[in-house]
């Protein structure tokens, strides 16, 4: 080094040193920032793995053109924990061996719709959204039809991809 012995102040040298100090500190900061940021952000941005889940209801038990609610048990990772999440899907028989699965979450503000067997409509209890038996909007505030889930039928058993 030897800069301590330099009798005059050299602005160029001083600036150069300052730049090295700043750059190195920025590098350390960036490395710690990337490690910390990766850990903080990654769990929130992770995508859920899709898998086929069996529905407890047989295809024979479904009624034509009327949604039947079925509950799925989905073991899900919740951070370090494993939790079993219960999730409801609406199953509609749309033909021989064909099933449509609807997510009963209203597309307006996320309330849970249910089947009204008298009016033959899916009704949302919150803001009066009304869908038909296949989840298409009939009236009310919902901006889009109910989301459909991919299904497959294996013999009598129904599987839903979630």
């Amino acid at each position, binding site marked *: 080094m030897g800069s301590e012995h330099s009798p005059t102040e050299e602005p160029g040298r001083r600036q150069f040193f300052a730049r090295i100090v700043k750059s190195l*500190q920025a590098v350390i900061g960036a490395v710690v920032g990337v490690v910390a940021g990766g850990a903080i952000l990654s769990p929130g941005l992770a995508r859920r793995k899709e898998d086929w889940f069996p529905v407890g209801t047989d295809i024979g038990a479904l009624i034509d053109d009327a949604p039947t609610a079925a509950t799925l048990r989905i073991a899900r990772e919740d951070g370090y924990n494993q939790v079993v999440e219960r999730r409801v899907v609406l199953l509609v028989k749309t033909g021989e061996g064909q099933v449509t699965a609807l997510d009963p979450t209203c597309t307006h503000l996320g309330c849970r719709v249910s089947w009204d067997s008298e009016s033959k409509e899916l009704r949302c209890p919150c803001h009066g959204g009304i869908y038909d038996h296949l989840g298409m909007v009939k009236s009310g505030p919902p901006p889009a039809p109910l989301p459909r889930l991919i299904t497959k039928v294996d013999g009598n058993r129904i599987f839903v991809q979630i």
Partner: protein
Amino acid sequence: MSLPTRLLDWLDSRTGWRTGRRTLLEEPIQAGVGWWFVTGSILLMLLTVQFVTGVVLAMFYVPAPDHAYDSIRFIMERLTFGHVLRGLHFFGASFIVIAAVVHMLRVVALGSYKNPREVTWLTGVVLLLLILGFALTGYLLPWDQKAYWATTVTINIARSGPLGYQLAGLLQGGTSLGSLTLLRWYAAHVFLLPASLIGFVIAHLFLMRRHGISGALRHVEGVAKPFYPYHALKDTLAGSTVFAVLLTFAIVFRAPLDPIADPSDAGYVPRPEWYFLSLFQLLKYFPGPLEPLATMVIPALVVGLLVLLPFLDRRPDRHFLKRPLVTAGFGVIGLAIVVLTYLGYKDTPAHANPAIWGPLPLAGRTFVRDERCQACHTPGGKASPLEDIRIRRDPEWIIAHARDPEVIAPGSREAPRGGMSEGQARSILSYMRKLRAGVEPPQVSEDTKVVSLIIGRYCSNCHMIDGEGGSAAPDLSRVGATRDRDWLRNWITNPEEVDPFANMPAFGDTLTPAEMTALVDDLARRK
């Protein structure tokens, strides 16, 4: 004038931050303050890294015995850069202990603690003790075997001294080592100690600035220069080098995690972290009633000497050769610590390597693919897939459940009929333990697979092998040392032909000739 400049000007007029920054950065540093004076800055850098990584770890860590271990595993395995994050924090702790000792030795060697810097030194001694406090409270947190047993020892040491009962109660927080202990050590580690540390660091830096840097031993000609960027450059270069080494450690070596704390495991030999190894070793030389000498008196004497140092050594001479007593004293204590640490290290028995799979976990891995297990343990099934649940139950529960699922889970109406043998249940338990420890299954030969299944299904019902299995019959781990192939083959085929009073069932009809050969070969190799 641009908007940002005007904003900063306004802020300056209201706060005076530019003057503040100048005061902080432009301290005149006299000529001759060289590389020896970077040790404090390195410590500050390491403490900052520790603080940041600690805060991020706290977002994922759960201070409860049921969850602590799993939350650490989550950090290590699932988080992006999680193992680097924990690595920085884990190895950072060791780096800080080393850096603190180096800093202290530098201060001692250059006599920097002398008048008027006695109080600066005292705050430094407190900081050293706080750092050791961090280390001690930190390693209980993962709730692994090392955490559990090292803390048990620490609390029992506290119990052995005067007012020991009260002190141990304070440390333990409950009637036994458990959730209350973990919570208070956690609170100390993340609230109490950091708050104290920050306070004392500020005091230490304030006093350092008040008295100026002690500087070179002899006056060096030259003008004083501002701290920034001249000395700051040395600090930053040294700090960056240390950080680069720390980062390499964090990336290359995995921060260790023992199996989960198990109070019933008598086979585990607890050893403290290396920086407490000298104290641990010291204990061995003071048995029985002399023990408090090692646990209390000697450490207290060392700390007492550190506290009193600037008041005992009051002559103005700073060169270490002109202070033979202090130099010799630190030399002796330092050497004693190094030697004790080395002896303690040499005395540490090798732990069973969790990466090695014995026959039981290998067999268990096959047994859990049995349809009786898969009937329920499947995605979306009655129970979670085995690979996901790891161990949350105690070993007895798992063995009982594998032997007869219906007994333990009476709600599952379709529980498969017919459970497994004791050996199979043990194998499954052993496999689950490996899963829990996060050890990848190895690639093994077909013979090894066959032999594992035989051992898991039959032998381990009664025999112990590689530390696992039943205890009704002799341990087979080293059976090849005393029995040869022929004897083993005859014995396994029909024990009564070898010894009419043999208790063991004959397996000549159970095993195929190929299986028998593979088994006999494997056992004969165990020497």
